């Protein structure tokens, strides 16, 4: 590690209440366009504070692989097809009542540590006023056989795993909410 204290990563600061002014130009509620392959899914939910109130000054960002389990990034060296029209990034602000909703495709499986395979998942960054540094979490898919052997999900205390798995509402429609505190507090990760 560098001994130069000026080269430690800059401190994070909250996005504050007016984040949408700077960030809404890149809002991406449709992560996958019509030509992208894969099983279509819409995910909706709410961002809820410790009182169960919807957070209106918040935003989530999604990062995911394509349906073949390949990330659109040069460090993904897997021999799997890339799709030119699929970046795999979504940015979705919360509305006045803390709701968010986006559509995408279910990603394929990507490798985990030690030769394991991860279950299909989206990685999520959570931003809002009152959060001094964004939070990281994941969305897994209900009834996916890969969930049982997923190397990240298996590190999460059993009773809390369900906070990371979306629930099926209807065909092609999943529900997944973020609870910051209290009963069903969402599992957040610290990398």
């Amino acid at each position: 590690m560098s001994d130069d204290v000026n080269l430690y990563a800059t401190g994070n600061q909250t996005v504050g209440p007016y984040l949408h002014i700077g960030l809404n130009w890149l809002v991406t509620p449709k992560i996958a366009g019509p030509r992208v392959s894969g099983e279509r899914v819409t995910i909706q939910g709410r961002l809820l504070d410790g009182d169960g109130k919807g957070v209106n000054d918040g935003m989530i960002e999604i990062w995911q692989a394509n349906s073949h389990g390949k990330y659109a990034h040069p460090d993904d060296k897997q021999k799997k097809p890339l799709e030119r029209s699929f970046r795999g990034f979504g940015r979705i602000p919360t509305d006045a009542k803390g709701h968010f909703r986006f559509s995408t495709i279910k990603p394929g499986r990507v490798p985990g540590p030690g030769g394991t395979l991860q279950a299909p998942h989206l990685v999520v960054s959570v931003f809002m006023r009152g959060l001094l540094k964004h939070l990281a979490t994941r969305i897994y898919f209900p009834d996916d056989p890969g969930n049982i052997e997923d190397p990240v999900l298996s590190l999460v205390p059993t009773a809390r795993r369900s906070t990371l798995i979306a629930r099926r509402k209807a065909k092609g429609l999943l529900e997944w909410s973020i609870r910051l505190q209290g009963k069903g507090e969402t599992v957040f990760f610290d990398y």
Partner: protein
Amino acid sequence: MSKLAGYRRPHPGTQPDYDFPPYAGTTKRHPTQPLVIPPQTLSELTGPLFGRNEVKPTDNDLTRQHRGAPIGERIIVTGRVLDEDGKAVPNTLVEIWQANAAGRYPHPTDQHNAPLDPNFSGAGRAFTDAKGRYRFVTIRPGEYPWRNHYNAWRPAHIHFSLFGSAFLTRMVTQMYFPGDPLLELDPMYKCVADENARKRLISSFDLETTIPEQALGYRFDIVLRGRDATPMEQ
């Protein structure tokens, strides 16, 4: 599988805690359960990449986004984006947003009794060049009151959002101005415990960046998380 180097853990004291009572907004919005520390996988070691064609040439000049010139003191804000090894982070997206010269945001929830400026939206975007440099032209933002505690005022600041090259390099911060007396009273600034790390949130006046008869220059370098020397099994 190929091997990828992971990202180093933050140095103690250089990043804020989620629960920070002096900033009242954290009370109901910080996790109370311990965070889970998982391995860094391909999902976190990659991240979205953006192209220069996604921003317009005027996106980095906040004084030229409307018909007229905004009110206020024109400034240049520039700096380098580096990793923790001091290496430039080229071609990465930098997003900023800020209040106008009167300390007002054009946002429905900003009720501060200060004028809006029809010639200032307060949002900008730029890409770093091959040496990690970015540059914005804007106006100096005003201080504004908030209700965190009695007579609370935010020091003048510009919000910065950066991606870097991976999910794990994502960061949002705020840039402050040198000599601002409000800094020592500001819970947001004070939430970074390490004094040296805190001071690095303050830009420095830079005569070299300053354009004669035009605008004062400020320098603000940003460091994103750096990678471990040894790759780990993926």
